[in-house]
């Protein structure tokens, strides 16, 4: 098993167990799990997540997670 630290932002906060802004929640996943599996484990429907960051880098859904990884997830957002 691996553990990742996840922060959900904007409308994704509806799927968060951790309600304190900016605080990560810990998610346990099987070894070799991908971002896609993480999204499913969080109960987030397909096609809602637009951007996933790992250690400040954008990653795709097939990214294989490592133990202790820091993940941030966003729905489509924009500003100016």
């Amino acid at each position, binding site marked *: 098993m691996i553990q990742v630290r996840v922060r959900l932002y904007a*409308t994704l906060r509806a799927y968060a167990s951790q309600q304190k802004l900016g605080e990560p929640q810990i998610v346990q996943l099987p070894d070799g799990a991908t971002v896609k599996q993480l999204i499913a484990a969080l109960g987030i429907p397909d096609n809602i997540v637009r951007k996933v960051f790992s250690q400040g880098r954008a990653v795709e859904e097939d990214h294989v997670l490592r133990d202790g990884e820091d993940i941030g997830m966003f729905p489509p957002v924009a500003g100016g």
Partner: protein
Amino acid sequence: MAKFLRINMTTQTATYEDAPAKYALMAGRYLTSTLVADQVPPSAHPLGPNNKIILAPGWATGTSAPTSARISIGAKSPLTGGIKESNAGTGFGQQMARMEIQAIIVEGFPTTPGKFWGVHITQNGATFFPADEYAGKGNYEAWRKIIERFGKKADVMGVGVAGEKRMTNAGICFNDMQGRASRYAGRGGLGAVVGSKGLKFIVIDDTGAPPLRPIADKDLFMQGQKKLTQAIRTHDITKPKGGLNTYGTAVLVNLLNEAGGFPTRNFSSGRFEGAPKIAGEAIFEGNKQRLGKELYNHACSPGCIIQCSNVWHDEKGQEAASCLEYESVWSLGANCGIDSLDDAGELVRLCNDIGLDTIEAGVTLAVAMEAGLAKFGDGKAAIKLMHEIAQGTPLGHILGNGAAFTGRAFGVIRVPTVKGQGLPAYEPRAVKGIGVTYATSPMGADHTAGYTIAPEILGVSGKQDPLALGGKAALSKGFQTATAFIDSTGHCLFIAFPILDIGSGFEGMIEEAAGVLGVQWTAADVTRIGEEILRTERKFNEAAGFTKKDDRLPEFMKYEPLPPHNVVYDVTDEELDSVYKDM
């Protein structure tokens, strides 16, 4: 017949003239930049008698097109020394368009220094009135009084104390739909140009004018409007209760922070530990807690269906400040190390009240903190510095003249400016493409001039790695060109998100403009006109003395690695120069 209104500040006269045929197809930034280039000598002192202020609504402004109430303002900038276009969302431009005033040209120079005038424009003509009684006051009070005097139908353009005192961070202020003095054509110090002319307000009331501006080809226009509206309403970012409507633009705080591109403590880091406390989510939650209900955002100007503008409330649930947008909570928050929305909100309120651009004000405060005038993170000390500006003390005058001036006054090396204008809220070392825009735009450091953030960070209009080199000049050039056109339509730039992803929305924007004018335009015309605007602006700057050396980011970004990615700015000078090489 479209007309120009000339407001002469030497003689206090206002006269209408038929718009020359050369300008018939121009509006918004296309018109303001062309008129500035044609009528202002590039060598003119920005605060002297030969500079002019030009106001023009966009093509779609004053029609039923969605989110189309932007007014464009042009002049030679006292902050950059180059040409400047700045725009704002307000009913003012819609009233101009319905009265068929294609442009207002403010020119001349006051003969009595220290005296201020207002101009009242109605269907009966334009008349001057003494405005000294409003001078020296905060903008909230001044706007309340002027709207009381001229009625709620009036839209008001004007300047605050910063503009009166000709500080080069003075913005031009407009009221929002509730009459708040809060919508700014902020960048480039154009408020100082208005102040230098002894002009305090222009009040416009189109009572008696037709409800919509004339449209040459109604079918084409309506077809365009339908497509654009559909795109805005369905895109995830701009649809009702979508990202912008729920969280406002400050929803970007956490995103840029995660990406390591959120400039912190005067551009010394790309991450701010206090980011979640000042983000759009915190504004939403904070308001909910203080008001006991969810508060969605509102339109800053009539006819906006995106509605991203917010109000921050204090502990008693009373209105504290509007609007806490991304740029403002960044500049007056993270960039100063401040993680309190109440302090950042008060700083926004003060900027609006004094008449300052929030971006430049925050970049300036951070440079002042670097100089030791206050500690990073000390919101109360930052508020005190803002009062110095309001009071016009010698220190206040230094700060009111912006980041570059303040940096020089105090011997600071880390001064994040290009062409004298403060960098906005995206760290170019961590987002390379936006650095190309900052460096090369004729406007000075300006994110809106070529928002490569869309593909580099947001995943809108494709995906690009923000940290990767290669192709970033072409990316910026494409965005700068399209933006020059959008800035001429009168649409808020935020329509770019849906139209970049939804092709029919892009077509709709073109068809609307073409319908108003009665011409046939395609995407090729967007590029043609966009490039023409940029060439005009660039030529003005060259004649004003700008060279390649001015198309560079501040030197410290080339040798100070930025955490967390520990990268410097490494787009080559040759690549920067390629943006305008063959344009």
